[in-house]
């Protein structure tokens, strides 16, 4: 019987570990961007490697969680939704890894005058995703608190949009010393950072629906 097996405990631990990986990945990404802006490439590479290993671990956990839920018939009514949520969260850590990798390959030249804007943009975008993790954890323990927790995700996502627009405006309208290719490249990096909060919002929308269903 399920109560007498370790499957439940193991699965709970794996889901927690998965959330921890995403949480840590967000933290490391923020530090990675800061290190890049500070031109500290050693720290940047260290952070990149860390995000890479976290993403690999998250992939493994995602697969194990989905397998265990199917083979042990756990959460039969919510299984597909939980799997979809984990997929969405995994996309966030995938985006963190690919963004850092692209920065590592393309080595964008970010003017130091934009450092503050980029840091704010990264902070806000990461905050949106970070606020998603407690909401996702709450889904399993206190689903009736999920929606109030998600409010912050929506707030930070809209703030990210504003910061992204203002930064792009500065780049394209105030920085005449940069050529168009450089501007386009900076816009591309901004899109990468902004994308994290968009993914968080997408997951939040899904989580919000799941929470209503489980509370009803």
């Amino acid at each position, binding site marked *: *019987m399920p109560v007498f097996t370790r499957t439940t405990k193991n*699965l709970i631990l794996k889901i927690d570990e998965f959330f921890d990986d995403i949480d840590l990945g967000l933290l490391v990404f923020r530090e990675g961007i800061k290190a890049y802006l500070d031109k500290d490439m050693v720290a940047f590479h260290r952070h990149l490697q860390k995000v890479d290993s976290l993403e690999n671990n998250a992939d493994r956990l995602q697969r194990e969680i989905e397998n265990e839920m199917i083979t042990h018939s756990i959460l039969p009514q919510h299984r597909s939704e939980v799997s979809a949520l984990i997929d969405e969260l995994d996309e966030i850590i995938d985006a963190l890894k690919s963004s850092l990798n692209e920065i590592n390959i393309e080595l964008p030249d970010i003017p130091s005058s934009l450092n503050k804007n980029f840091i704010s943009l990264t902070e806000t975008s990461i905050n949106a995703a970070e606020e998603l993790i407690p909401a996702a954890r709450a889904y399993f323990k206190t689903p*009736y608190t999920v929606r109030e927790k998600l409010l912050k995700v929506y707030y930070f996502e809209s703030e990210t949009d504003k910061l992204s627009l203002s930064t792009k405006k500065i780049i394209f309208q105030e920085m005449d010393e940069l050529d168009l290719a450089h501007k386009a490249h900076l816009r591309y990096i901004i899109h990468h950072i902004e994308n994290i909060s968009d993914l968080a919002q997408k997951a939040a929308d899904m989580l919000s629906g799941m929470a209503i269903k489980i509370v009803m």
Partner: protein
Amino acid sequence: MILFFLTSGLFLGWSLGANDASHIFGSAVGSKMVSFKKAAIIASVFFILGSVIQGSGTSHTLDKLGSINALGGSFTLALAAAITIYMMTKFALPISTTQAIVGAIIGWNFFTGNHTDSKTLEKIISAWIAGPIIGAAFAVLLYMLVKWFKNSSKIHLIRFESYVKTGLIIVGAFGAYSLGANNIANVMGVFVPAFHLKDLDLWLFSLNSSQQLFLLGGIACAAGIITYSWKVMQTIGSNILELSSEAALVVVLAQALVLFIFSSTTLSNWVVKMGLPAIPMVPVSSSQVIVGCILGIGLYKGARNINFRILGEIGIAWIISPVASGFLTFFLLFFMKNIFGINVGSLINPSAVASEQTSNLATYGQSDVSGIIKYFLLGLLIFGTLGVIFYALLENKKRNEIQRSEEKFWKNLK
């Protein structure tokens, strides 16, 4: 000949298994918390245990309604009830064996000119109405309690579901045991006086004549559960209302509680001691209670998701089944008596007929039926053991294959 008469009882047992027993695990299987395979095995085992260990008593209430005083009558009555249940099961509608039997007994009373005890009938019909209402009230209260526990304890969803799953298995097993104990007499009770089998020594324990009959009836019910209960389980579990896991547990628990309250003399005596009116000891239909429970939860949730069309069909089936069973019994008794010349009972003093019937059939009963049952059980045991070993091997093979494919995947990925 006596074994031939028994076949209608076994058919009724099969119908009971296919229909009534599916109510126990219907909500669990419908909500996908327990697989049909697991539910069928647990329900079968515990139904047989309940039948053999505690299968007695409830036929007395039906005796009051009409005492069948010939084996041919018992055979026809059981056959009519079984056909009615089979037909209802065919349309995936949950009906009650008690309803079919009550209808059949009234049909027999009409045919033989016997008087139907209107007080007992009133009691039974009022229980048919009260059962679902009480079930709905219990279900709502339990549902509120479970919801409150879930919200206030902040238990992890996966752990909560594992408790619910374990609870469903335990409550379902208990429900199947109770159903076997209470309903097997409806199936085989009419045959008990006619059979006098030798005690069957099974090394560790022995079974008396009625226990052997109950065992056969239990096995017939188990066959019904395994072969034909899937459709009714789906109707109960998902067609009326999509049930959440905790609602599934609440439904089974509420049903068990209602059945317990209406059959516990200890509880009734305690209520009387408290200065309250006694709880009537009336057989309550499990199918009606469970539909009431599901409806109660549906109404508590706002009645938006209730499938009223299915509910209407079930309601009509509840009215049709006793009537159809009564008419069918009357029709079959006519054929049995006038075409085959079988004694199906009469208005003569019931005790005299019963003793005559018993004395006539005792000689058949002493034959080798016990020996047949013994070899049948031995065969069943061997096949059962082989089946379990084969199933375990298959499961093990499947697990190993999944593990191998997983290892291969990660190896290739690296």
